[in-house]
């Protein structure tokens, strides 16, 4: 008789624990949309920043920009080619 009561009580406890667990999880899930929305917004922000930075990088590394910058800083285009012909340097020969 006592054994039966223990079994029944245990079952009851399991049911109670599971019910409470379910309620807690459901409660968390129902409000997680807010976090999700925040995460989505953060992803959007980073993607936007990434796109803006990529645009800046492309602009800075474009040859048209580089040419302008080089001209401003006084660089000149290389127009001569230096070719080493024989005889080879003594050090190289050895």
């Amino acid at each position: 008789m006592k054994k039966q009561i223990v079994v029944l009580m245990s079952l009851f406890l399991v049911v109670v624990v599971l019910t409470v667990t379910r309620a807690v999880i459901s409660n968390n899930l129902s409000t997680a949309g807010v976090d999700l929305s925040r995460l989505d917004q953060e992803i959007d922000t980073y993607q936007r920043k990434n796109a803006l930075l990529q645009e800046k990088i492309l602009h800075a590394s474009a040859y048209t920009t580089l040419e302008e910058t080089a001209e401003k800083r006084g660089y000149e285009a290389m127009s001569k080619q230096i070719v080493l012909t024989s005889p080879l340097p003594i050090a190289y020969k050895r």
Partner: protein
Amino acid sequence: MRWRYRLVLFFYLFCFFAVVLRLAHWQIVEADSLSLIGESQYGRSITLTPKRGEIKTSDNFPIAANKLAYLVFANPKQVSDIQTTAQILSPLLESEVASISSLLSLNRYWVALNPGVSYEKKEQIEKLGIKGIGFEEQYVRYYPEASTAAQLLGFVGKNSEGSSEGYFGLEGYYDRQLRGREAKAVQIHDALGRPILARMTGKVGGDDGRDLVLHIDRAVQFLVEEELKNGIERYGAQGGMIIVMDPKTGAVLSMASAPTFDQREYKDFDDGLFRNPIVSSTYEPGSTFKPLIMSSAIDAGLVTAQTKCTICDGPVSLGGYEIRTWNNKYHPNSTMMEVIQNSDNTGMVFSAQKLGLKRVLSYLDKFGIGEMTGIDLQGEAPAILREPDSWYPIDLATASFGQGISITPMQLISAFSAIANEGKRMEPHVVDKIETGDGKVIVIPPKEIAKPISSATAKIMTEILINAVDKGESKWAKPKGYRIAGKTGTAQIPIEGKYDPNKTIPSFIGFAPADDPRFIMLVVLDRPTTSIYGSETAAPLFFSIAKKLLLYYGIPPTQ
């Protein structure tokens, strides 16, 4: 009593039938519309526009990329003071006050004020906090190198359905690859409009556009465009075209033409500028065509480099016409090598007559003259040759020196590349590989399309062309120490059945280093005013670029 039971029975049966009928109507006839209503109550369907693929040069630099932009829209019913709002927005949107105020006066809930507004401008407008003004994020085409290679790239415009579509050049040819596929997604939300985690978006299908990696070398393209611009100014030309290609693979390393347009402001330019003249405009090639006929005659075993011309002592009379040399100077008994060196029309008539019409047409066919090259660009024009029956002896004679025959610059360089590549003609290609969103790389391998001449003929022809450069009219411009094979051309412009004596299309085609070509290049100028001759305009421009290219590729001189 029995009739009462039956009445009740029939009544219930009728009711049951009516319920079944109504359910069937909902389940079958109105299923789609009802499910849409249902979906709209707990979520919303979103169409996700794919990002257009980028177009990259051989160094992986995107010359056509995507840029973040905003569509500024308004709800006119929420805008309280139309005139003040229009005055505030006018400088920021770079639009007339009247134009904005007329849009805000419309009896609508949504009007687009300006597409493609930058992030900085959007921030400025947002800070003003004007009621009824909103923004929609979008990606628009961005060209970091400005209008570089505009006619090669084409542009992205809107089609009749309002969607983005590529037109002309690569944007047009590879539109389906670049465009990608739209995705559908349903976002489930709660009563307050917040998304529910357990019922998150279910994305269906869709792919971002694929990226194109070109053979185009950004440094070479930049150099060629600068040189073309300077050349047009220096020689007072109306325009010009330059193509640089790797003859061994058919890879197009650079392609530039002028006048051109700006892809960002394409609406402000004339439609005629959108076409790439290198593949879509035909012209008479003039003397640059001679090496094709000469190499055919050598390949057929009818002449050698040392064969003497027996009709070169004066003008050649043919069918009532008289064929003269370009400078009216004649070289009796000149060899075929000298015929090319002197760009002698009578010598070319000699070799064409040796070949005969049938063989000339057969060789031209193998050189790809009269058919499309197969280049991966939108708008390639077929420059079709006349039917064999309609050729007269005078036509064969004039065709031998590139008159009375029309081809595109692309056809010419494609045919000429066979001489530089041991007789093999490769299919010209701009795109090297296609990169998919999931990391796959589709490589487009080089393709041999014909072998019009033998390797031995190609070597002989190369030597003839080296001699033409070393002893020809433009030898002064050639970079010292290099073996360069090439030929000048001065094509006349046919006007009302005659040739204009003062206007020409000078050109120069050649490859370097001649013994192991790294590039083949064609330079064409349109009606220069400083000189009508190719040797004084196109040739110096060719050598100026060739010198810089040899330097760029680090090729040392051999002589």
